[in-house]
């Protein structure tokens, strides 16, 4: 057993560091630090995706034949960790990490040839059509319906919490093509061009002041049957496969550590009157740091199992839950550290392009919005309550 990286892994670490040093501009870095929502805006995020793609690193988890870099689990860990340390843009995961693996796993050769290169290069920008106003945790109760009409499906219904639908040119969606004996039956996985007539998007502002999610309406939207991935009625299986990617992408501790470091730096600064001198704040910083240490070790244990081809088992279902809870703890601490500056609201977005003097020092601008938006961490991708159900079922067998 050893926590240290070997010579090859250290060489790779150097390679990642020098790639980042060469490609990460100050503008991207500042924009990322000043983005209080989950993903960077497309101009920033896709600029980074293009740089990664040029290096051959556009899709770390994909097989080599589709453009993946054939990294070991340890290399993926190093890549994610170095990226977090450097503060690279948060590329929207809907393309590379979510719809990509589904197309690779279940798509037709034509779909693979058409979509995968466009995901890699950042030419296409994807959003996810899963949740509906009446179908949250009980996702398979979804009602958006696709009715066969010749070579098309005609889609009617609505999707909600659609992250970056207002930027996306494509959506992957779960729609109902028939009514089966179980509500999970009769769901199909469809790829939709967002410019198709009949699609409208309504912005939803979240409590942190950001426009990241939307509601999308479908009014007699015609989508070619050729845009269905896999078999008709099997969409639930594909959708679940994808949700496992969303939950288990699992290398989160480095980003949490950077988030905590930013808060700890503020606590040690005169900007907060040295909040850290309050024993209560110092104590809580340690408490969160230790939680991050524990999560990091669990991630490394999963990674070690993967390295030797073992199945890490249900332990990975813990990762999403702890990651989201710790992220919230970091943002909660942030609000308490900045004290009276938490009263100030900066309504303009993006925060990195303000044309006026902001109400607080720049280092604090994202603190309250991140805390408020961050309430969603334990809701999206399966609520914490759903995660606990999964842990009870998969890990404990009850």
């Amino acid at each position: 057993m050893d926590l240290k990286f070997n010579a090859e892994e250290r060489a790779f670490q150097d390679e990642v560091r020098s790639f980042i040093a060469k490609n990460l501009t100050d503008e991207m870095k500042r924009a990322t630090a000043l983005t209080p929502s989950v993903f960077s805006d497309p101009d920033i995020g896709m600029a980074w995706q293009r740089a990664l793609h040029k290096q051959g690193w556009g899709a770390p988890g994909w097989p080599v034949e589709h453009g993946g870099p054939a990294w070991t689990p340890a290399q993926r860990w190093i890549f994610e960790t170095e990226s977090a340390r450097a503060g690279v843009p948060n590329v929207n995961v809907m393309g590379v990490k979510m719809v990509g693996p589904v197309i690779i796993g279940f798509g037709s050769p034509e779909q693979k040839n058409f979509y995968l290169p466009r995901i890699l290069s950042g030419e296409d920008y994807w959003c996810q059509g899963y949740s509906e106003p009446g179908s949250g945790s009980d996702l398979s109760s979804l009602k958006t319906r696709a009715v066969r009409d010749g070579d098309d499906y005609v889609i009617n219904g609505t999707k909600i919490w659609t992250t970056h639908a207002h930027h996306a040119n494509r959506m992957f969606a779960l729609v109902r093509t028939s009514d089966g004996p179980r509500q999970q039956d009769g769901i199909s996985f469809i790829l939709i061009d967002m410019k198709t007539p009949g699609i409208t998007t309504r912005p939803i502002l979240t409590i942190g002041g950001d426009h990241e999610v939307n509601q999308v309406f479908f009014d007699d939207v015609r989508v070619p049957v050729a845009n269905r991935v896999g078999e008709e009625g099997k969409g639930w299986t594909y959708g679940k496969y994808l949700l496992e990617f969303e939950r288990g992408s699992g290398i989160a501790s480095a980003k949490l550590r950077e988030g905590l470091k930013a808060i700890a730096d503020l606590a040690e600064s005169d900007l907060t009157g040295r909040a850290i001198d309050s024993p209560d704040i110092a104590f809580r910083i340690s408490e969160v740091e230790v939680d991050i240490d524990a999560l990091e070790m669990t991630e490394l244990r999963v990674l070690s199992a993967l390295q030797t081809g073992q199945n890490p088992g249900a332990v990975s279902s813990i990762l999403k839950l702890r990651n989201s809870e710790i992220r919230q703890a970091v943002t909660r601490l942030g609000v308490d550290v900045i004290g009276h500056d938490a009263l100030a609201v900066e309504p303009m977005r993006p925060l990195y392009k303000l044309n006026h003097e902001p109400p607080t020092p720049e280092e604090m601008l994202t603190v309250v919005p991140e805390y408020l938006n961050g309430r969603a961490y334990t809701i999206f991708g399966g609520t914490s309550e759903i995660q606990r159900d999964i842990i009870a079922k998969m890990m404990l067998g009850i």
Partner: protein
Amino acid sequence: MDLNLSDEQRLLRESAERFVAGSYNADHRRKMANDPLGFSPAVWKQFAELGWLALPLPEEFDGLGGGAVEIGILMEAFGRGLVSEPYVATVVLGAALIARCGTNEQKQASLPKIADGTLKLAFAHSERAARFDLAKVATSATRTTQGWRLAGSKIAVLDGHAADEIIVSALMHDHHGPSGRIGLFVVPATAPGLAISDYPRLGGGRACNIELSDVNLPEDALLGDGHDALPAIEWAIDRAMAALGAEAVGIMQTLLDTTLDYTKIRKQFGRPLSANQVIRHRLADMAMQVDEARSMALRAALKVDAAPTERARAASGAKAKIGKCARFVGEQSIQLHGGMGVTEELEVGAYFKRLVASDTLFGGSAHHYARHAELGRKA
């Protein structure tokens, strides 16, 4: 980077788990709870035969050269059986201090005898007025013509009643008064002036308070050459905290398994307790905390030989986090067993009490979060 067990480590785990499952059961534990010694000399002999007493000792002194990870593997299995033999006192603390601080002659005199089971040790450091401050030692060691004279009081000495020799920390005084240096002195259990009052320890085993009334010792009772021993004490206790963390993981895992089984069998309102979401979620939280504790114990073990600040932060982080997890898992295990959980008729309480004792020993969560924070600011 590799956190998989090696083949040797896997074998060690299997043999430890097999031993504990075979030799340690509720009857044995009940017997030990009422035993004046608190553990079984026959089991101690078996530990020696299995090589566990030699496990972390240096190879040149009949040891096996194992590290903190191996100790952790053993301690986790000990936790599952609530083993009460004086392993931490003799091997994890006592032997480590001699191996680190002793002269070659001192090591030669002690370590092979620890390995073969003929020498048991204890470490007397804590004092009432010091609370958890390792640097605060009032017990004095004064120069005499023959060697040293020790005077003072120690509390919470693990297994001191069973030790052949007790390693006592004392502030060294020279002709000008206190030197500011702490020395470690090997005191034979039979030394005149040494009074030991032992008591049954919370969660099994025994501990004692010690009075040293002018205990005269020869020159070579001092371990090593008289350098300040505080860094070695901090190092040894950080290692012991990693070991206690692994033991707590074994205890918590047993409590989780037992509680899970119980909630499947116990029926109320016509269905098993585990059919209730509130119970399933509680158990999910317990499972998660056992896993977090497992990660922290391993992390502390892997960092025992790191630079002092890194090592100490890992040890304190683990002690704080594991203590917090242990209280939650232990308290909830009792809660989910209902009234039976509060009785001595089940063993849930015995396991819980051992967790409380481990949490308290060398300082609880609050102390170690504070130490973690303090060391973080200096770094």
